[in-house]
């Protein structure tokens, strides 16, 4: 029998303490984000640091609060695949508008975060 046809097994129970620890991590990570954004000395590496911290928060919420860590592959695929396409669309739009077609819209046009 194939592995994709069976009765649903109950997800393991996650205790309140796990949720509170994750919540604590979220507070700490957000505090780090805000602090980093105010430290001028970190300006050259600020973008990658902020991106990494945001990804960490995103992953914690998705894995523990949305229970993806405990879900079946079907449910994980239903989130990860659209997320990958969404990321691809974002990267493509940035590339198309802010880099590849710069010459079409005149000088001085480009991403201004950096």
């Amino acid at each position, binding site marked *: 029998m194939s592995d994709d046809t069976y009765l649903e097994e109950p997800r393991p129970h996650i205790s*309140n303490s796990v949720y509170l620890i994750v919540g604590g991590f979220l507070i700490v990570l957000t505090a780090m984000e805000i602090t980093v954004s105010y430290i001028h000395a970190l300006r050259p590496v600020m973008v990658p640091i*902020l991106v990494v911290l945001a990804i960490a928060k995103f992953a914690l919420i998705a894995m523990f609060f949305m229970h993806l860590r405990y879900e079946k592959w*079907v449910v994980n695929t239903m989130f990860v695949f659209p997320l990958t396409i969404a990321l691809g669309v974002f990267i493509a739009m940035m590339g198309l*508008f802010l880099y590849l077609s710069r010459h079409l819209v005149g000088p001085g046009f480009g991403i201004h975060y950096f």
Partner: protein
Amino acid sequence: MAAQPQIQPIVEASYLEGGLISWLNTVDHKKVAMMYAASSLLFLALGGIEALLIRVQLFYPDNHFLSAELYNELFTMHGTTMIFLVVMPLLLGFFANFLIPLMIGARDVAFPRLNALSFWIFLFGGIFLHLGFFWRNGGFPNAGWFGYANLTERMYTPGTHIDFWDIGLIISGVATVMTAVNFLATIVSMRAPGMTFMRMPLFVWTMLVTVVLILLAFPALTVGLIFLFLDRFFGAHFYQAMAGATPILWQHLFWLFGHPEVYIMALPAFGIISEMLPTFARKPLFGYPMMVYSVILIAFLSYGVWGHHMFATGMGPVADSAFAITSMLIAIPTGIKIFSWIATVWGGSLRMTTAMYFALAFILEFTIGGLTGIMFASPPVDLQQTDSYIIVAHFHYVLFGGVAFAIFGAFYYWWPKMTGRMLDERLGKLEFWLTVIGFNGTFFPMHILGQWGMPRRIYTYAPEMGWTFLNQFETVCAFILGLAFLVLYINIIKSLINGERAAADPWDGRGLEWATTSPPPAYNFGNIPNVRGRDPFWITKYGRAGSRGVAMYAAGQIPKPVPEEPLTEPIHMPAPSFFPIVIAAGLFVMGLGWIVLWYRLVALGLLAMFLGIVGMAFEYPTFGQETPETEEASRSAGADVRKVGLWSFIGSECLFFATLISTYVVYKARNPGPPGAEILGIPLTSFSTFVLLMSSVLMVLALNAIQRDDRVWNRIWLIGCALFGMIFLGVEIHEFYSFWQQGMAYQTNLFSQCFYTLVGTHGTHVAIGVIWIWVLIVASFTGKLDKSRALSVEMAGLYWHFVDIVWVIIFTLVYLMQQVKGA
């Protein structure tokens, strides 16, 4: 042996009775499908008449049968109608709706009332699109089915033409996404025992991939249409170059939807052909696994090819090359399919029914359309041919020669199952030959006209251009094609009135849909079948797959119908509901309110929708109660059907927000002057971010509480979560008001409109989440929320956490990264 007591199915009265009411409130997927068919065939007649009027106009050079303005309206409505109101509803709403539950051995779709709601919204959306014609100082939409900006801006197209198109497509889009969520949950979670993914009929596979395409492609169109709405009604300028924006943004958003849309229409057609050929060749489908993988690959690649519609906009050599390569790559999986179909037919014991005629013709006609498509994937070739009649020839060979041929074949193949009556084969053959002659005569000369330089969308041409004869030939053939449609309509009516009775398995079919009566009972199957392999009904009849059936059939050993086993358990079917039609009517009224700019009408529509949604939520079954069919549904894939539905919606939302965020980043960089992102304050938003994150913690605590049946703490955590959500919203409103006081109105510049749109859209999601949580709180206080309904809390929680992670991105990208520049 004692006789077993007879168990009767429990079916609501309206399933068994006819009459208008039973159609208005039905939630039966088969009845909903038939309503889709009736509506789409009506729209098909309208779209066909529009096409014939276009052809009459082009019959003579310098013809003034139609004005230029009316010509624009007709080609706009022809494209819009055929794509959104005919092909998609016929494939998804009619065939897939009727057949998916039957093919996978289910009693209905995952969410029957949502299915009815999708239909009514589609119907009201279709009517809305056509209303402009009857409007004072109005007319049909007139900017093409692609609605290129900035032609669609109010200063270039005043009046209500585009308003009807914009709002009508938003309404129809809502219906399409709902259908996609429904089908995805149905296919993933409601397959019969033994129906593994790699045993699913190929039509179901193509529908699974198609609905994923819809969920990931439609958000881009929705965002584009919302921007257009904001431009036309709120003075924004998302597509106005003079404000620093670019009309090219529309093209990216539209084709990001538009090219996957081609496969949204083509893949189900591939599935239809893959069902018909094995039946009429009496052979299993050749290369089933490769067919499945090629469908998935086509869908995946279709997201990376939208730029080939935009070579002429000057995206630059790198982008052009990338889009050219991905576009050409699609030929590989498509070629696999074509060769597999040929190999399926090769050496088979062919029965040349009308359905088989159309299936075989499909292979040839679609291949012609596909080959010209490879030509346009080359930018230098495309630059010569774009906007000429060769493009019109290409996409009609794909969408008519491909998709419409498959639809015609599907009518002859599955109509007996759906209605219990055969379509007349003689009329069918007549229709086939009229279609082949009419279609090729109409569209093949367009290749030549295009090479001669005849542009698309011109309403007339000069006699000295030398285009007259071929245009006249095309017009004559177009009327032959119209005659073919007329034959189909006559055949359908004739069949409904006194068509020959159809057996349960008139074609010696292979799938589960042939294992039940024609037409199927309301509950589809007395007992849910057990699936032992691909082509499950064929295996039931002949013992195993392969060519054994051919030999048996040739020897006259035609198997007898498999007798229905007695019911072993009662069958509960969902009750009918009037709320879907109320909600759809509310959406229609709201759209109308925007057209006439009477905001009380908008509020009235919104109120009707709200009351309809609340009514539907508490109507049946009692709030949050498990229904027998959803318990059944949880068999496959190990995921609850409602959770799968919500996750598919969340997946779609990922693309929705990705598009909004991309636009924000692109336009922030183009903002012509202050105020800009420097106006944003970090401290207050940091506070609201903490509040929102903590609300997520409270939500999971509420879930844990209800899972251990601790109703008091569940209530406390839910109230806390709702209050935190309201604090977040309060801070956002305060922030918006303070920016407005500082001179940053919505229309001030590119930054302001993008900021308010992105953050405001997220805020709207938070507000919906807050309302959802308050509904749970009310349910809890009225004793309707206990451990058995913990899934209701989990569902609200999933949505809430998703809104939370979107804010994690917005907070970083919009607020904190601004510090990088300001530092």
